[in-house]
């Protein structure tokens, strides 16, 4: 008789034999007394890829899954190796992780925190996953991150942009490579000032939930620091599909810039509506009226079609980075090539962050020489690396957030195909988007200490 804290693997390892006479004595695993949840066997290690497969973000989830497949292939020595050749850390050699073949399980988050946690729990309890990664919204990332902390599993966040993920809801077992609302604001503000001048009046439409709040706060404070004035901020319901009644009053409000703190379907519809109202052609205060979308994604851009032409926003990464801005962003082309050859189109930023997160995890395990979450946390904290497409990057120890350059993009006027919808305007260097760990926008919450589980 024994108790495991969370998972079956914990007990399997201890090799306990049931008292029943029927029980067959159980073999002892090599790392039997590893003392952490789901310690892998000698031959294979299981990763859990938890992405939205149904619901509005299903396509983004599908792209994430493609990137994970590719990462697993490269880690196991298949394909052309992708970013393994450009990554500054050279410990990964295509023989899996610590000599174990990488296997994976997939699940559907449905972009709901409950479903995402159910799926993650099944990966931990049923499949024995040692690490969970993925997701396409901050609500899911925060919920699954807390679960992994409790279970003693490492969580490598996928696409999540809210400050809270590494702010008030940060956890010791969770890591985020993607950028956040604050960085969007800090990266966009100087470019907005340069492009549209410092004497602007902004009108914010904000999605009425956590991510919307942090994004609005970030954009507002950094544009105001540049001299802009905020005329009004209005919250819009998540379930809204027609934004006309929110956009109609904008032109007469005295504002000359509209900031759409929306993501996904909300952003596609609000932008489409705004363009329909003729805001792109309008003039206000003697200036050309402008629209800004703080967080861009390739799939949203595709959904909004021609409406994104000329609209500024920020991205974590873009597949054209290395071609246009040189080999500071090395790794980009290697990844685009192996992704493009396998799937026939360039990867999205969601795919990129997921691929990189998987590699970073594998690398950390290898450097630590152990799958023990606490060892992995130690290896990732303060880790400086390069060659993964974003230039020199730091995984900061204080909040487990990556610090790297932020890409400012603009919707193309005449895109050549549906995968090349944005052009890179400028890259804001990492120094300008770095903030103190105790910055007010990230206040509250504590990292706690790493939890190895069972």
């Amino acid at each position: 008789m024994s108790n495991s804290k969370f998972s079956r693997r914990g007990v399997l390892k201890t090799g306990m034999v049931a008292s029943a006479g029927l029980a067959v004595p159980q073999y002892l695993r090599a790392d039997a007394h590893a003392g952490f949840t789901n310690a892998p066997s000698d031959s294979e290690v299981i990763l859990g890829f938890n992405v939205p497969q149904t619901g509005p973000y299903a396509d983004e989830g599908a792209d994430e899954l493609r990137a994970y497949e590719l990462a697993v292939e490269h880690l196991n020595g298949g394909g052309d190796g992708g970013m393994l050749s450009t990554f500054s850390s050279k410990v990964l050699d295509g023989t899996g992780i610590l000599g174990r073949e990488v296997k994976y399980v997939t699940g559907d988050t449905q972009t709901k925190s409950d479903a995402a946690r159910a799926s993650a729990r099944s990966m931990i309890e049923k499949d024995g996953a040692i690490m969970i990664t993925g997701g396409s919204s901050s609500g899911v990332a925060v919920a699954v991150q807390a679960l992994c902390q409790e279970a003693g599993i490492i969580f490598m966040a996928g696409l999540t942009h809210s400050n809270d993920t590494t702010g008030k809801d940060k956890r010791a077992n969770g890591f985020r490579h993607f950028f956040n609302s604050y960085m969007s604001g800090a990266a966009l503000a100087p470019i907005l000032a340069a492009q549209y001048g410092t004497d602007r009046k902004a009108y914010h439409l904000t999605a009425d939930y956590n991510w919307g709040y942090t994004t609005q706060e970030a954009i507002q404070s950094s544009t105001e620091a540049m001299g802009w004035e905020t005329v009004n901020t209005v919250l819009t319901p998540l379930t809204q599909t027609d934004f006309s009644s929110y956009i109609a009053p904008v032109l007469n409000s005295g504002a000359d810039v509209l900031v759409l703190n929306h993501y996904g379907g909300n952003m596609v519809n609000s932008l489409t509506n705004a363009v329909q109202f003729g805001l792109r052609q309008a003039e206000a205060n003697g200036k050309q009226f402008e629209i800004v979308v703080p967080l861009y994604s390739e799939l949203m851009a595709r959904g909004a079609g021609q409406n994104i032409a000329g609209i500024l926003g920020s991205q974590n990464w873009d597949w054209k980075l290395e071609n246009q801005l040189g080999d500071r962003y090395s790794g980009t082309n290697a990844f685009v090539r192996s992704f493009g050859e396998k799937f026939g189109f360039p990867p999205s930023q969601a795919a990129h962050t997921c691929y990189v997160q998987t590699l970073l995890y594998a690398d950390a395990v290898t450097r630590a020489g152990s799958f023990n979450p606490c060892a992995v946390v130690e290896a990732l904290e303060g880790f400086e690396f390069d060659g993964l497409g974003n230039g020199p990057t730091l995984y900061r120890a204080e909040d487990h957030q990556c610090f790297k350059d932020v890409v400012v993009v603009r919707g193309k006027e005449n895109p050549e195909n549906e995968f090349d919808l944005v052009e890179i305007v400028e890259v804001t260097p990492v120094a300008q988007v770095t903030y103190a760990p105790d910055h007010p926008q990230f206040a509250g919450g504590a990292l706690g200490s790493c939890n190895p589980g069972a």
Partner: protein
Amino acid sequence: MDQFILQILNGLDKGSAYALIALGLTLIFGTLGVVNFAHGALFMLGAFVAVTLSNVLTLSHKVVDETRTDFLGNPMQVDVPYVHDWFGVTAGNAIIDWAVPLAILVAIPIMVLIGFAMERGLIKHFYKRPHADQILVTFGLAIVIQEIVKYFYGANPIPTPAPDAFVGSFDFGVAFGFDPNAIIYPYWRLVYFFFAITIIGAVFAFLQFTTFGMVVRAGMADRETVGILGIDIDRRFTIMFGIAAAVAGLAGVMYAPISSPNYHMGMDFLVLSFVVVVVGGMGSLPGAVAAGFLLGILESFASIPAVIDLLPGINQVIIYLVAIIILLTRPRGLMGRKGVMEE
């Protein structure tokens, strides 16, 4: 003042969408008594008729352009739509540009056929079954339709713009002496509004002034007696289902430029359309239309910034709040008939 006029205009437009969707639903739900959870799916299918037509019009063949390269460094393959080959680039682009209005013509026969198929193949067998069974079967059908669309079109919204001629907005305010830009209204929404009025008018006229409509109205009131009189009411109900599907589909076609179609847009509208129909009162067509406009206008008022500042969150709940108030003050909604779905 101008704020209110602006929001009334907005509300009329939102309301015309709600009214159109509710009109189709109430033909099936309020009068045939079938709880049709697949109605949202019909609306979505309509929008995807527009998407499909614009895909068909942009159907293209690949031409290799040696002067340019794609992202992997291979020679770029450029898509050339067939309509360019046939009608020349200018005329071809104009046809592609007008895909959404053209889709109306295509949508009517397609949606009527889908409606027929649904009624004959499935719903017919559920007229006498409990509402619970109707919910389960139509919900299942809605999921199946959705997933089929998702399989072919993906989950991402698909941009389906209105013709270029309708981009921009009309400045009403100037005509009435307000400041410029105080009361503006996009041209496409004007089109939508008049389109909705036309469809609603046509359906009413059809039911009011034709023999067919008279028989159907009689059949709704007392199906058995009409049957005894030797009139084939079943066939007429099938046709009603076809009309309802067409109305839902047309609402969807015209809505495509306002909200880029995606496979679950029907589910987003489903709950709302049930609320509109019930607030309007079961079994009443004018009620459903009136409730659609009423809720649309109130929703617009609730999104005025000053109102949100006063009552935070009011824009989140206004529709449901109004529904509760109306149903508590008027037992059968705005114009409901006695005894319809009251048990």
